[in-house]
């Protein structure tokens, strides 16, 4: 039986064009999501595991309107726990202020930096200067205490402790 030529006649060899519009729409949606949900890399904020207290009383940082502060990050010596040494996780690697590490044993430099920042703030005529402690939750209190001592010595009256917010807040 002879094959029908209907399909042959009707068949076109035109270019198949993919509809790009939905793909571009989805791509833009993804970009907007990543921009909103992502964290902009900041010198002030080091990557660490913050304390997660039960019924956290922490207030969202944007609600504390004063930006006149110095943030001291206390980073664990073994942040990922890969060394297998629990003592290393509990030890602090350094105090990081605006991306600059200060040796944990160097309390003099820590005091000088806090004092400089406080004086610079006062020179600008700003009020309500405070020290923000962003400590890794696994680090021992012994490693945090020098910051409290240095801040009190530098006569900084306020201290904010960074912690995770209560879920659902």
């Amino acid at each position, binding site marked *: 039986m002879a094959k029908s030529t209907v399909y042959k006649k009707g068949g076109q060899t035109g270019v198949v064009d993919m509809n*790009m519009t939905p793909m*571009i729409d989805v*791509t*833009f949606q*993804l*970009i907007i999501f*990543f*921009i909103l*949900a*992502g*964290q902009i890399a900041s010198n002030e904020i080091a*990557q660490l595991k*913050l*304390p*997660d*207290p*039960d*019924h*956290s*009383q*922490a*207030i*969202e*940082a944007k609600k*504390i309107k004063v930006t006149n502060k110095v943030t001291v990050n*206390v980073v664990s010596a073994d942040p990922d726990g890969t060394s297998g040494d629990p003592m290393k996780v*509990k030890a602090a690697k350094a105090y990081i202020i605006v991306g600059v590490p200060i040796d944990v044993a160097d309390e003099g430099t820590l005091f000088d930096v806090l004092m400089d920042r406080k004086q610079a703030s006062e020179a600008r005529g700003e009020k309500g200067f*405070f*020290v*923000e402690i962003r*400590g*890794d*939750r*696994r*680090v*021992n*209190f*012994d*490693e*945090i*205490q020098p910051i*409290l*001592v240095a*801040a*009190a*010595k530098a*006569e*900084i*009256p*306020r*201290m*904010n*402790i*960074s*912690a*995770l*917010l209560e*879920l659902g*807040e």
Partner: protein
Amino acid sequence: MAKSTENMANGGTVHYVSARKKRGRPKPKMQPPLTPMIDVTFQLLLFFLLTFTFREAEGQIPSRLPIGDITKGHDVKIDPIFVVIRPAGDQAIYEMSGINVGIHGPEELYRTLMGRQRALGSKEVPVVIKPRGDVAWQHVVEAFNQAIRAKFKNIGFAPST
């Protein structure tokens, strides 16, 4: 009279196109080139995918610091509530002045602090948190947080023991 236009072919021959025929033709589409935009969009998407880290909801617990050398201690007019923290494995045990048994966990600490606050009838009583040096920062912040949750207004840290 039906309108007609004339087109000149290459050889200079005049071709008349009737208005009806012209109306029947599809209008030429004007579309800017989308390819570069899609390229850039995908570059951006790839960048965000590779550098993305989820942001944890972070906040701050405000407090006040004593002025001067805190290691020397300060005169306190009212007898403070001391909360001593000592490590117990991965957890911590809280000991409160006037209570002989250890307090396990934040919820129990909160209830004990609330009970003390009600018994004293004042939120102004100082709460002094006294952690041992080898206690994890998590447990120190936990004690501080529970004292704030119990509405105490005067909370401080004592040098580690």
